[in-house]
């Protein structure tokens, strides 16, 4: 399925196309991917922070910054490979045009995925910087250490979004994606509350979602809470496996839709 090396100059050409378009539409991109999570951060930091005294031994701001960082990464990466990518696939036929060049499908989709992850990282870093300035990041070193994990998570969210796009037959399909995939990750995976506050079946479902695994590593790193190394390996392995599975499924499925 993947006959060439993973990230080559063809993938890079696709990535650069996305970056160019992004640069041209930078203000609206910034509004969605940077301002939006910051609004959430302020709302929850101030609003809930005033009500909630301590949570897991942290101030609520310290608790919510890693959650918001993961949420903004998830939202930006997911949006890019679903709504935006589906426009290029179905409406604009950009993928058709690109596949008439030497760029192979797997390279095109990897370019899309890595670009989406790049946008997710930009979003995450914005939240991190603001949270840090605001005094919501107790461990600066841990925060920096968490960035590679967030990058992997971004790839995972992007690949999962792409797998959804591979199955989408119309725009309506994405309302399911956002209702049953993005929103549960926002609510149940530890962004605002600890997962163990939910009934056990919700917890069980939450651990199927990549967001829980992301926050489970990122929050201890950024706040200085203890991190079980064995569990960290499992979280990372889960994210990695899901990324690869979702990406391969996307290549297979989109290949069948486009070439058969």
């Amino acid at each position, binding site marked *: 399925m993947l006959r060439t090396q993973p990230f080559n100059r063809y993938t890079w050409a696709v990535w650069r196309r996305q970056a160019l378009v992004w640069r041209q539409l930078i203000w609206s991109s910034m509004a969605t991917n940077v301002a939006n999570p910051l609004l959430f951060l302020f709302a929850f930091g101030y609003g809930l922070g005033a009500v909630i005294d301590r949570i897991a031994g942290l101030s609520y701001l310290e608790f919510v910054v890693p959650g918001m960082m993961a949420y903004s990464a998830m939202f930006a990466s997911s949006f890019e490979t679903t709504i935006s990518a589906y426009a290029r696939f179905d409406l604009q036929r950009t993928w058709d*045009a690109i596949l008439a*060049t030497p*760029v192979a499908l797997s390279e095109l989709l990897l370019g899309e995925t890595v670009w989406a992850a790049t946008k997710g990282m930009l979003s995450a870093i914005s939240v991190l910087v603001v949270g840090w300035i605001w005094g919501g990041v107790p461990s600066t070193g841990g925060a920096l250490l968490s960035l590679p994990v967030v990058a992997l998570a971004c790839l995972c969210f992007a690949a999962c979004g792409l797998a959804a796009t591979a199955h989408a037959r119309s725009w309506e399909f994405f309302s399911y994606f956002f209702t049953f995939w993005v929103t549960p990750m926002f609510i149940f995976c530890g962004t605002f509350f600890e997962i163990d506050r939910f009934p056990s079946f919700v917890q069980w479902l939450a651990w199927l979602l990549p967001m829980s695994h992301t926050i489970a590593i990122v929050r201890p790193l950024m706040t200085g809470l203890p991190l079980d190394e064995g569990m960290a390996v499992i979280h990372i392995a889960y994210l990695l496996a899901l990324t690869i599975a979702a990406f391969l499924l996307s290549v297979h499925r989109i290949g069948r839709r486009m070439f*058969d």
Partner: protein
Amino acid sequence: MPIISATNLQKRYGALEAVRGVSFEIESGACVGLLGPNGAGKTTTMRMLMGLTRLSGGELKLFGRPVDGVARERRARIGLVPQDDNLDPDLSVSQNLHIYGRYFCVPEAELSKRVPQLLAFMQLEERGDSRVMQLSGGMKRRLTIARSLIANPDLIILDEPTTGLDPQARVLIWRRLLDLKREGKTLLLTTHYMDEAQRLCDRIIIIDGGEILAEGAPTDLIDRFVKGHVFEVQKPIPDGLLVGPAEYEDIGDSILFYTATPSQFAGGLPAGATYIHRAANLEDVFLRLTGRSLREG
């Protein structure tokens, strides 16, 4: 050595057989027209050549090599002008060319030279900074053709390059295609305009129902299938005409007679018969071979 050598190409979509056993060869430097009604299998055939649609059967050689495993090299040497506009609406006119060139890994310095050249070639030099949305249909077509040339391809495949354009835009595109032919490029095009095919193509392949019906130079096809001359005789048809040696076809209000000896045929028409005599053209061939009933789709 032929640039394209297709043997028994087949494409099935479920129960639908879009292409059933098409074989042809295209030699280097030729301009070949693929003609057929809507749904005849033209676009599918072109997509198979580009590797954008998998073959259900048959064998395809491009540039003398079987296509399996040379997808990248094949696409690097072919420029495609698809039927539906798929220019990048997020980019400007010159960015469309520049970014497309990167997909072929054309070096940046080379692209900076080539983009203005191509814009000038397709008379778009004033529009380099325009958004694609702001272009007229003719300009979009010209830009799509310019885009197909960005990596200096040997073979250019054009799917209905002039459909929906005004006569001025069509003439400009014809001139440019003839320029490309003169440069030694190989062209394969589809069109619904028979005058266009007759003017541009050295060879015509007429396809319908996924099969090739006829193939040859435009003048050969006209001589072979419609004898060079057409007499359109209004009904009622005088007695005796239908048993004569000329081939004919009933088209409703009148009957078309095809003949290679027009003066002899005209002499045989009774006084008072209402008719039009004209040189036969490719449209006559096309309608004769593919039928006159309307195609949907």
